[in-house]
């Protein structure tokens, strides 16, 4: 079933896009991540122009996180105070990202920079997750009780001036720390088309030392608003938001997420984490090889306004 995408300007197989959304949704349901880091590269691989892939993927993530925010909100799993600080940082980050995107596009380096970002971020996160889950599995196998992680914010955070109390997170820290974190993920959303959950969640736990009960809900809350802001930034600057593409992805991903969530209940979380680390590393390695290999196309054409 072929469908013409009005903004991407090409005809795609509808079932392939819905299926792609479904596979990413399945993974996101299983692992509790947004899956934007898979959607964007896969769309580009399928032939969607990179700008359209990044922008529409952000739009899709907005829809994919709605029900999560509502569910976590109902069981008091969102620290709105912290959430708004993150969103404020994220909104500024997405504006800065939009400016950076345009500048890099003009210089012709956007693809390279996005590729490098993927390799560095996914590579380091993947290695971290793999080390942690392997360590956990090894200690379980030996029969030793896993070391309880000390929930304490990073010493660097304590240096920052101006302290606020975040009751639900159980923190008394400077709002600059979450604002900067939000800024970084907002920028990533614009540049890479990812929600940033895979950075946000570990950073909230290990850097800020937030109470784990509100981590996922609050990160989803931030992702919801920041991806919406990103959609707006792309709509206004690159004009690359393809509604039809986003809707197709969304249909696939919400369906896949339901199946994934059910599937995940039957598997031990340690194995899930290891599997996710593996997928993240594969994507990072693939992107890294893509940068180093001689590309299929040496020349590229872009229209001059």
């Amino acid at each position: 079933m072929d469908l013409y995408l009005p903004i991407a300007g090409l005809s795609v197989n509808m079932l392939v896009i819905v299926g792609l959304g479904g596979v990413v949704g399945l993974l996101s349901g299983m692992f509790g991540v947004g899956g934007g880091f898979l959607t964007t590269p896969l769309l580009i691989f399928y032939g969607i122009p990179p700008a359209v892939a990044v922008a529409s993927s952000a739009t899709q993530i907005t829809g994919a996180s709605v029900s999560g925010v509502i569910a976590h909100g109902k069981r008091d799993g969102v620290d709105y105070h912290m959430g708004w600080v993150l969103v404020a940082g994220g909104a500024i980050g997405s504006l800065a990202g939009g400016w950076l995107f345009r500048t890099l596009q003009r210089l012709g380096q956007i693809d390279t920079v996005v590729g490098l970002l993927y390799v560095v971020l996914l590579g380091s996160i993947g290695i971290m997750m793999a080390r942690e889950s392997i360590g956990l599995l090894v200690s379980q196998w030996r029969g030793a009780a896993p070391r309880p992680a000390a929930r304490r914010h990073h010493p660097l955070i304590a240096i920052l001036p101006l302290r606020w109390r975040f009751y639900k997170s159980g923190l008394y820290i400077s709002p600059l720390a979450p604002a900067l974190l939000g800024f970084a993920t907002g920028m990533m959303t614009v540049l890479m088309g990812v929600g940033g959950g895979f950075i946000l969640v570990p950073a909230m736990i290990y850097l800020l030392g937030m109470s784990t009960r509100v981590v996922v809900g609050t990160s989803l809350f931030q992702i919801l608003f920041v991806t919406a802001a990103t959609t707006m930034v792309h709509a206004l600057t690159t004009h690359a938001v393809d509604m039809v593409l986003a809707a197709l992805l969304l249909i696939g991903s919400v369906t896949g997420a339901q199946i994934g969530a059910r599937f995940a209940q039957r598997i031990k979380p340690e194995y899930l984490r290891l599997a996710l680390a593996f997928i993240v590393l594969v994507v990072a390695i693939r992107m890294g090889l893509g940068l180093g290999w001689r590309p299929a196309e040496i020349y590229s054409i872009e229209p001059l306004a």
Partner: protein
Amino acid sequence: MKRRRLLPLLTIAPMLMGAEQPKLVPDVSQRQIDIIYSFTGAELLLFGAILYPGGRAPTKPPEIAVVIKGPPEPVLVREKARIAGIWINADSNAYRSVPSFYALASSKPIGTIVQPRTAVIYELGIDNLQLSPSSGGDPAEARRFEEGVVDLKRRGGYYSESAHGVEISEGVLYRARIAIPARVPVGRYTAETYLIQDGRVVAAATRDIDIAKSGFEAFVSRWSEKHAIIYGLFAIALSLTLGWIAGQISDRLKR
């Protein structure tokens, strides 16, 4: 509209005035191609008749070449180079008018039926396209970039040549099929037909073909450009609504 079509005829008027020359009566199957949701490309049929002065075909019948050209656009061509182990865009060259689409079909290989000079004048053949570089640089470098562009466009299906794409029956009627791929840019295309005898163009005719997004597709792309704020808000609202509905459905299913 009429004047535009007459123009190519006027350019060859001096030739027509000399001896009695055959005339062309060309047409295309579609003057307007609408891109709608199900658009996967189109096939244009260019057909027509050759009218000879005496009413009968000469012993050595002429040849036909048809060209479909997309709207020319200014482009920037970038060249990747390996720097510090990774491939990044390094050098670039700007061109003022690169045809977004070019398809040539002829009754025999184009090189064997026209003189090289004629081929250059009428831009017959992909190698004869004039891309007009806007930065006057090293000619060898300009050629390298042009080859890169042409190669890219050719493999993308935007540029094509078909050496036996025109069928001439009884020396009088001709027809050619040219495929328009789904990814072509929108705009005004021209279909040019050339009647070629003894290596020269003896008659030519042009028809315009408009390729435009239509219906919902046109609506969406117009709003994304002209009313970006409303478009953005609508995209967010759509995404939120779809996500919310999906959440409601899955809640029902769980109960």
